[in-house]
């Protein structure tokens, strides 16, 4: 499995990380080095093995389905790069 620049560009797009075209070949080479390392996992026969879901077997706790928190608009917005009139502000999404 070898990753080319087009695949690297697709992955960067999926990850929402801008990568300039000139940097794509180097990125693809890095991916290939890491994936080459991961490739060892293909040696093992894992057909009858359950994939791990939880490392320590325990039943997740449940709680009553009630509101326990809220009314913290100022705190929620206090770290926003751009907050206006009680909302997070972002560039226009809908034309």
């Amino acid at each position, binding site marked *: 499995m070898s*990753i080319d620049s087009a695949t*690297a560009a697709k*992955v*960067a797009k*999926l*990850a*929402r*990380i*801008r*990568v300039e075209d000139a940097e794509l070949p180097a*990125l693809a080479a*890095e*991916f290939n*080095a*890491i*994936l080459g*390392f*991961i*490739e*060892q*996992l*293909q040696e*093992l026969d*894992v057909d009858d*093995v*359950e*994939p*791990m*879901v*939880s*490392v*320590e077997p*325990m039943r*997740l*706790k449940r*709680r009553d389905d009630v509101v326990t928190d809220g009314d*913290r608009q100022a*705190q*929620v917005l*206090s*770290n*926003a*790069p*751009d907050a206006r009139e009680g909302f*997070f502000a*972002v*560039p*226009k*999404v809908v034309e």
Partner: protein
Amino acid sequence: MSELTKLTIAEARDALRRGDVTSVELTEACLSAIDGADPLGAFVHKTPEIALERARAADARIKAGDAPGMCGIPVGIKDLFCTEGVPSQAASKILEGFRPEYESTVSGQLRDAGAVMLGKLNMDEFAMGSSNETSVYGNAVNPWRAEGSNAALTPGGSSGGSAAAVAADLCLAATGTDTGGSIRQPAAFTGTVGLKPTYGRASRWGIVAFASSLDQAGPMTKTVRDAAIMGAAMMGHDPKDSTSADLPVPDFEAMLTGDIRGRVIGIPREYRMEGMPAEIEALWTRGREMLADAGAEIRDISLPHTKYALPTYYVIAPAEASSNLARYDGVRYGYRAKLAQGDGITEMYEKTRAEGFGAEVRRRVMVGTYVLSAGYYDAYYNRARKVRTLIKRDFEEVFAAGVDAILTPATPSAAFELGKEFDDPVQMYLNDVFTVTVNLAGLPGLAVPAGLDAQGLPLGLQLIGRPWEEGDLLNIGHALERAAGFVAKPGKWW
């Protein structure tokens, strides 16, 4: 004054209770040591006002006779922990300016026990690294230097600032977190003690998430006794973390009898790596002899899937990171890129994340995105989860056969020079070869300083325990520490 910063938690606690010293005196001594140690790059946000206020409150509490073990003890907090009103950046540009409105459960438990926060500690960005070189703040530097050399060494990573601060006596102890070895490797590189608890022992709430199925917080201290005292204060059930175990936390310190007669210690043959330095091999043999001399039974064991642990980790950890780090979008907190005319929301996401994340974080997020993407999910991610089951089964089988703990080297080398391994990610990943299995299997692991190499640099041994048996693990570590008699300290050059 500076002698005060050299105290262990246990010594300081006893001196505080006797009235020989006040928390304000201890805190002032640490603050002055910190101010004189900027070349170490350990403390990245100093909080002297909070420290002195908490120290005064601790002194009042001690006077009133209502003081738990950590009361009045000055500690450093890794930058990964959210601390109310204090910058908490995970050493990343993308969290520039972020001041949490809340306190992480673990740092909150320490605060409520009376511990004094001195400031925030350097680390690899989002805890991704083994040398503290991916930090937006710049490197943390190991207080240790090789004999006859002025070369700057790594304190290890990701909890490099924590390890450097404890080893240099800037604080009595520090918090760390460990996803693949990030407490134990830096502890080994700096001659300090580091404990990664069983997965689920310490709450992850309020700790910036890297790989949620592997992350655990733990203490980084000068002695095993201190790890027992501070560890107990950090652990316990938290309803805000659904994976936190509802189990009582025993009095670990009371379990430090040093009596390990009849305990069975496993020596896994797969940890004898090709190309392992002779000094590491010799240290491991000495550790084995020390435990045997203390009355333990030494048994050769096999953990056959060990060689697959690192590749498994480098699928699972990036996969979880790509999901966890999706929240850094420039909307709710931290950094937002400057946008050009006509840029929409997608450009905002892409530019913010390209500029806000460092190279290693971008690399891991993209590798994670790839292994989770349609067509590769089964080949990589699901396969890695299956191999993880096999790795855990290896441990279950040796524990079922009567092994109480496992002894291994902590790292494949002593601390290396800053800049030496940084350009080759896969080479850097090999640092975690002895520690990463423990995270994949959810087990407790303890790094104990056990000797110096020919260049005078510290080397550590790792003990791996049964799930939830941190007390027993610490007791075996205590016996090892006593036998090794490690007392060396780095010479002050900073």
